[in-house]
Every structure is written in structure tokens, then in C-alpha cells.
């Protein structure tokens, strides 16, 4: 690991100043960043440890719930308000990583975690995300874990987060601080597709800091479910995961939210399927149709074509759970 400087700002302003310097990088829980530094994937000159900033709070607002970017994944997943208002988020968090990791991992760090593509991690392999212009090792390589939606000819990596799939489904908003002030962007527009710049994962500028996320109140608590299909029951990234949230009135769907993980460079919201479900009675037939609709534009590669079948099956299964049909 390259030698680096370390600083621990005590105010947001100091943090913002520190991260605007070239070669500086925020460290929160360190569960992703330190691994990447050990593997030589990233080599910051200066680590800005933000753990002393007052960003751990989980507080109700009059329109929803604010979760600070330094709130731990484990704490959020057990928080009373989260469990009561947005159990989907708790389920998504608990489906991720392991208890030890969740005890260190923060909300901001989770949003910013990088892909687990093996070619990205192995510095002897080509990877446009790690080193633009070197090519994509996964495209014709071992791409079992890779994307089926929104890929480009530069990159087919997926965003590995579970939490983000839950937040995308819940219409969360990201609150960002910069030296010029705060801005808010919808969670679904925070991450981006690879296009010609796979090295850029999201729309956060280098000199900006995630302060927190806000989830607007909704009526999904009773009928939501996070289903993660993986190679083992815990401590494995998703082959496909689905966050499903329904607002059901008398067996008829009033509102639906669907997002998928493990299939794209960002949490993949299924807007068309959501819209189609509105007004439909809850039934496996309808869920299957919605799932098929969600697959428009999907494209498989040598080792991940199974996702073309697994994804709709998982959507259907998640919707059945959300609707209480299983």
C-alpha cells in the first residue's frame, strides 16, 4: 500500500476543504476503501476521516425520515423508525455483507462502494473502470456476476449494493454538501450508467460530501419485501435482488415500487412495470406479466444469461412476498 497522509476534520467545512485537495479521499467505515487500497486499485495521497462529523443521526422530518451518511448499516437496519416506516430498507441492509461489516459500514460509504467485478480488483487485468482505455476484462471473460441492463461497450460491471436497491425503490433523496452549499438529488439519479466513462460511478463531485438521505413517508410498510438470490444464504453478493413495495387497497394495487440489484451499473428501477401494476389486482399472473415487462432491453453475456430468467422469477417471487401471497 502506498504511504498516505491522514487527517480527521472536526467540522464539515474543514472536511470539504480537505477533500477538495488533489489526491484526497474520504474514509468512513473503510470496509471498501481499505480493501481497494490494499489491492492497489486506488492509491490516495490523503485520507480524510469523516467519522467525527455529526452525521450519524436518524431523525423524523415532517415529510419522512432523515438518515445521516455516517449512520452505520447495522444501526439503520435495527432502528425503530426504519423498522416501522421502511422495513424494506432494513431487509435490504440485512441482506448485505456480514454483521461485522455492517457494524463498520456507513450509509454514505455503502452508496459510494465500488463494483466487485473481479477484473476491476485485479490490477494485472484490463479494466476501463480502474484504468480507462485498457479494455474490459469481463466482456469476454468470466462475467457471471455482471450486468444485463444499461451496459456499454466499455463496461458491464454492476453496482453491488443491497441498501441502494432499497433506497432507490423508496424514492429516497440524497443530500449533498459542497463548498457552495447543499443540493438534493433523487436517489435514482445518483448513480449513473457506464457509457463512455465507466470510471465514474455516480454524480457526486470530487469535492462534495454526502450528508445523508431522506426517505419520504409512504404506505408501503405493510407490503414490502427484499429478496436477494445469491450463491449462499449469507455473505455473498446478489446474483439478482429485488426490492418490491406495494400499496394495496382491497386486493388492488394503488402504488408499486420495484428496483433490482445485481443487474446494472446502478440500482435498476422498474418504472414501466410499476406503472403497469397500478390498478391491477394482486395475482401471480399479474406479477409475472410485470416481471416480463421489466425485462425489456435486457442483454445477457456468456456466463450471465441465466439472469434473463432469474431476474423475472425473482421479481415475481418478491412481489408475491410483498403482497402476502406466500
Amino acid at each position, binding site marked *: 500500500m502506498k504511504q498516505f497522509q491522514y487527517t480527521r476534520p472536526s467540522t464539515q467545512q474543514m472536511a470539504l476543504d480537505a477533500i477538495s485537495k488533489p489526491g484526497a479521499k474520504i474514509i468512513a467505515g473503510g470496509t471498501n476503501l481499505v480493501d481497494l487500497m490494499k489491492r492497489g486499485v486506488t492509491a490516495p495521497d490523503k485520507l480524510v476521516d469523516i467519522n467525527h462529523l455529526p452525521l450519524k443521526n436518524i431523525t423524523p422530518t415532517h415529510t419522512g425520515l432523515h438518515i445521516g451518511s455516517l449512520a452505520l448499516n447495522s444501526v439503520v437496519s435495527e432502528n425503530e423508525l426504519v423498522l416501522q416506516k421502511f422495513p424494506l430498507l432494513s431487509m435490504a441492509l440485512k441482506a448485505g455483507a456480514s454483521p461485522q461489516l455492517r457494524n463498520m459500514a456507513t450509509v454514505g460509504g455503502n452508496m459510494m462502494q465500488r463494483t466487485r467485478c*473481479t477484473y476491476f480488483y485485479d490490477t494485472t487485468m484490463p479494466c476501463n473502470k480502474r484504468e480507462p482505455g485498457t479494455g474490459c476484462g469481463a466482456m469476454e471473460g468470466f462475467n457471471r456476476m455482471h450486468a444485463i441492463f444499461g451496459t456499454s461497450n466499455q463496461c458491464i460491471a454492476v453496482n453491488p449494493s443491497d441498501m441502494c436497491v432499497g433506497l432507490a425503490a423508496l424514492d429516497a433523496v440524497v443530500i449533498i454538501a459542497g463548498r457552495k452549499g447543499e443540493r438534493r438529488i433523487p436517489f435514482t439519479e445518483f448513480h449513473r450508467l457506464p457509457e463512455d466513462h465507466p470510471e465514474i460511478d455516480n454524480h457526486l463531485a470530487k469535492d462534495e460530501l454526502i450528508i445523508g438521505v431522506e426517505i419520504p413517508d409512504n404506505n408501503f410498510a405493510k407490503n414490502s419485501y427484499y429478496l436477494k438470490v445469491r*450463491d*449462499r444464504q*449469507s455473505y*455473498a453478493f446478489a*446474483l439478482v435482488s429485488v426490492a418490491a413495495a406495494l400499496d394495496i387497497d382491497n386486493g388492488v394495487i394503488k402504488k408499486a415500487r420495484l428496483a433490482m440489484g445485481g443487474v446494472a451499473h446502478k440500482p435498476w428501477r422498474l418504472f414501466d412495470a410499476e406503472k403497469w401494476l397500478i390498478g391491477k389486482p394482486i395475482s401471480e399472473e399479474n406479477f409475472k406479466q410485470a416481471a416480463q415487462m421489466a425485462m425489456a432491453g435486457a442483454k445477457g453475456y456468456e456466463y450471465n444469461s441465466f*439472469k434473463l*430468467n432469474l431476474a423475472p422469477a425473482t421479481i415475481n*417471487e418478491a412481489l408475491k412476498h410483498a403482497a402476502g401471497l406466500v
Partner: protein
Amino acid sequence: MESKILNKPIPEEGLSRVDGRLKVTGKAKYSAEYDVKGVCYGVMVGSTITKGNIKSIETKTAERAPGVLAVITYLNCPNIPGYHTDNQPDKGPLKIFIDDKIYFNGQPIALVIADTYERALFAASLVKADYTKDQHQTDLKANLSSGFSPSKAKDYLRGQEDAYKLAPVKIEHEYTLPTEVHNPMELHAIIACWDADDKITVWDKTQGVKSTQRVIAQAFKLPPENVQVTAPFVGGAFGAALRTWPHEIAAVAAAKLVKRPVKLVLSRADMFTSVGYRPHTWQKVGLGATADGKLVGITHEASGQTSVYENFTEGVVNISQLMYASPNVNTRYRIVPLNVNTPTPMRGPGEATGAYALESAMDELSYALNIDPIELRIRNHADSDPLSGKPYSSKFLKEAYQLGADKIGWSERSQKPGSLTKDGWLVGYGMGAGMFGAYRSNATVTARLMADGTLFLQTSVTDIGPGTGTAMASIAAESMGISPEKIRVELGDSALPPSPTQGGSQVTSTVGAAVFDACKELKDKFRQLDGGADSTDYTALLQKNKLQKLEVTTASKGSAAMNNYAAFSWSVHFIQVYVNPNTGVVKVNKAISVADAGHIVSPKTAASQIKGGSIMGIGMALMEEAVIDHRYGRLVNNNFADYHMPVQADIPQVEALFVNKPDPYLNPMGAKGMGEIATIGVAAAVANAVYNATGKRIRELPITPDKLI
């Protein structure tokens, strides 16, 4: 019988692990944990190409990095006098740092030594090599045609060749097992410390201190007694530490070069290319039977990968020669040299691989015949060893079938796949059997009774986790009639009396028998002190005779009568799975393993042994798979995030049952081994259960969700 028990100092459920407290409190010291004065640290640098030569290697930057004492490559490695030849097929393990040749990706090209681990690690990242690349081969399936029959495993024929083809009912299928990499919890580690020019002490992770002593002595041309090897605790090994690997030789050479003790701990990524693995193996099994389920013929072919510099062979097809009473059996075994590191036995070695194919094929045959899989096995039960014709020393496999079937509720199973469901999940039952040779070799044990009543038992064998020390204490407590609290077991040191390497399920039989014999001799000595009486008040006897201690060192070996029998341990595994019909997720809901392993000397550790083996088998069936990107010849999942083995959530309550009937011939305790049979047959049981649940037969492990949707 000899195994007369004086009294019962051991509780019915068996002794708790004698070293359990040390292990859970962190007091047990593993090889990397010794404080050795002046120690420095080694980190290996692996090749990034798969075949070719090192054109040039830049070590200057690393050498200039802070704290670096040396960067060892083939250009400056101290002479290892025992290396006579370069690396040629079957001239022993990889000889490290002798030339510029690269045989596999990750092959060590340099060893960086620095005053701290972190500095060594950093400097290792600065070593850069230039290569001339040759075309490599890493893909077993694409290279099956270059397989050859190794001299150690000739083709076998009993009766007529390929007789299954002529049978009224026949099946023929291919089964593939991917590479499974050795990943015991404890990383491989060695501290090498030269005490004089011709004398060295090593703290090493090894399954055999005596074999490590021999190998290091040979490599450095030292008298074996000048090589002191210590391994009192080993954090799991499963075959990975049966050999002395190149990195161990490198550490010893490095310590010589820098004239300081060197500690080398492999990283998890190093483990994937340094300590062997269960090789990727392709198999084909043909079974033919009469309509009433009598086997007519078995044909079993296998091709397993090996390295280009060593011919690794294992008993993949042997199980088909041994398991069932079929008049016609033929087997063919090939090895395929590839640009990979050499495989090594992994628990239940080739037999576990072979049993996956044979026991899956038996299951397929049972459906073809519409006969219950257990009934099919009973109809083909071998009453004597089909290979040698000898009677078995003991065999209670039919009882094991019954015990397991009752426990799992086999009667609930439906012979029609896909017909049972629970809460929207498909439910299936499967079983698979295993066998492994039961052995006893030679061992010497010192038993020393001290004035305060403490009994010391000493021998060089290592306890890699199966509970060897606990079994020894149990045997001695029963035999001497003293409380187990009074017994101290000292193991894992080459200075102690010789006993075999821990492996091949022979240690309880061999070392246990030596403990038994030593205790018998010690009791005889006490009896003489006592004028022929049989008192167990040893302290009083010592006091009366003004002795500080009484001690014997007893060499023990099996009787010639053993040659008249075929001795095997047997197991049968029962699995109940739930399979999600939509997502293909498999959950093992029940796992029951039954062992016919003779008299159970140490019930608690025996049960742990069986449970651990079962979990390993579940991992083999459902998740373990090392993946190589053949374009680069490089592993793409050499870490624990990507290389999956079972976690707690994957494993239900696993139950271990024992027939617990003594083997009359093998050793005075009547015990047979069980380390290997714990795993052999499990993967087939899981695959068979998945078929029973879904009607889908997955013949390429692991059975991941993508294969079931």
C-alpha cells in the same frame, strides 16, 4: 479381548476437547505466533503470466525500500544443495527460485524480506518482472485428449470390459467437479531460525513434523536430528499441509541468506496457488443392471488435472472397484498436465470425487429401475472385498443405512421427483455412501507417570483438529483407570517419539493403539512394583518405591493377522433439501451422516469430525469452485468474497450417528478412521436430493441457483 476396561473415568458422551479451552481463549499458539528474537518477514511475489520465462526482473526499487533486507529471486537464491535437477515431470515438488521458467500463474518469482511485515508487503508490490510468454493451457475440458495413464494408477479390469452396455437397464453419464482450493482457517505459516550453520529450528504449519524434518534435511543436506520442527497446534489442514511446500523451503533459504529468523505467512490469495487443491476432474460412469437391480457392470473413467512439473494421482475410480458386488468392473484414470500448480489430497481425496460420480450414478440407476436407492444398494451389497476377495475386518453398512434412513424420515420421500412441497418450496431427499481404507501403521509413544499422578503422553503426531489429543487422553484414561484431568498430551514436535503424519484417517488407529500399548506396558511395570497386584493408586506405588516417575516408550504396530482382512470404514449420508422452484435457491434442511468407524473412542470429537466433513461435502455440492479465466490462465476468485464455502446460514443442524461396533482386528480399541468418510459421498447425497426435489440432475458441481432455473 484386550480392550478390557478397568473402570469408567470417561463420561458416556465422551471427553470434551482437551485443548478446547486453550483454543477458545487464544492461548493455543500457532506457528506464526511464536516470538522469535530478531525475526524478519517474508512476502512472496507471484508470476502474472501463466507460462514462459522471466526475461528480466527489477528488484532494485524494492531493495531500496525502507526496511528491506533482501529480495530473493532465481538470480540470487542461496544454493539449495538438495535441488539436483530442474523442474521435470515427477522429479518432486516445484523447486523454487532455480531458474527463469514459469509453469503457472502465481508461481513465486521473488521473496521479499524486510524488518516488518508491512514493509515487506509494500516492497513486494515494487518488484516488476518482464516475461516472454508462451501459449498456456489451463482448461481441463479442452485438454482431455492430452491425458495419460500415470504409472501409479493403471487401468483396472474385473470380468468383462464395459459390460454395462449389454445390461437390460443401463445409464451412462458424465460428472464434473471443479477445482476446490484448500482454505483452512489458519493460513500456512513458517518461522525458520538457523541456530548454527548446520542446525535449524522451524515453527511450521504441517500435518507431519517428521516429514517436514525429513524434507528440509534433504533439501539443505542436514542430519535430520539437526532440523527441529514444531507444530503443537494446527488450525485445520485437510491435506494442505501434508507436504512441505516450496514457500517453506524458500523461507529456510531466506533465513540463511539474511542470517536472521524469517517468518513467512501466506496471504489468502497466496493460498490459492501455493498449497494445493482438489483437482478439477471429469468423470464418466456407466452402470448396467438386471431388471431386478443386480449390477451387471460398472465402468468408471476419470481425468483429473495436474501440473506440468508433477504427476499428481489420486484414487478417483478406486471406489468403483470396491464399493459394490458387480461381476464386471473396469476403470480408467488419466491425468492431464496443465499450467497450474500441483493438486494435493483434500479430505476424502480422490474417493470423494469418485463417490460423487458413482453415488450419483447409482441414484440415476435407481430411478431408471424404479427401485428405492437404499434398496438398490442393499441388493448390490458386497459381503466380501470384491477387489481382493478377502473378508472384511468389519462392515456394518446395512445398519448404517437403516440408522440414517430412520433418522431423516426416509419413508416420507417420494420416488417421483418434484412431488413434495412445503410452503412453496420443493422438498427432496437424497443419500450417498462412502468408504475409505482403514489403516494402522507404526507409532511410538512415551507414557510417563509422575509422582503427583500426572500422566504425560508424548508422540510427534500433529493434531490438526480432529481431536487426536482428546482421543489419546480418552484411551489412556480408560486404560490406566485415571481421571482425564490428570493426563497431559504433548504432540507436534519432531523431538518427540516418531508417529505418522496426520492424514489418511489412520491416526486414531495407529497412535491410539500406541497409547494403548504404552499404557499396557506402563501398567505392567507398576504391577511389578506392586508385586503383581493391580492397584491404580500409582502415586502411592511411586512413593512407596521412592520413585519420581515411571516411564515407558513403546513402539507399536499392527498384527500380521490384519493381512487376512480387507479393512474399511463406511459412511452413509442423508440429505433433505428445499429448492425454490422460481429462483433455484437450494437450502439444505437436514443433514444426517452415519459412520461405521468401529468403536468410537472419543464420541464428542468424532461427532465434530463427521459434522465438519458433512459441511465440507455440502460446500462441494453447492458452492466451492475455483474459476480460471483461461485467456490469462489466472484465477478470478482467489479471495473469500468470491470463492464461496458454506457459512453458518447455509448449514442446518447436522447430525452424526455411529454404528459404534468394534472392529476386531485393526487395533486393540476396535476403532477405525473417520476423517475421510465424513466427506466421501456427501456431495452425491446433496445432488441426489436436489434431483428428488426438482427432477433436475446437475452433473456439473457446484449446484448454484443458475443451474436450476
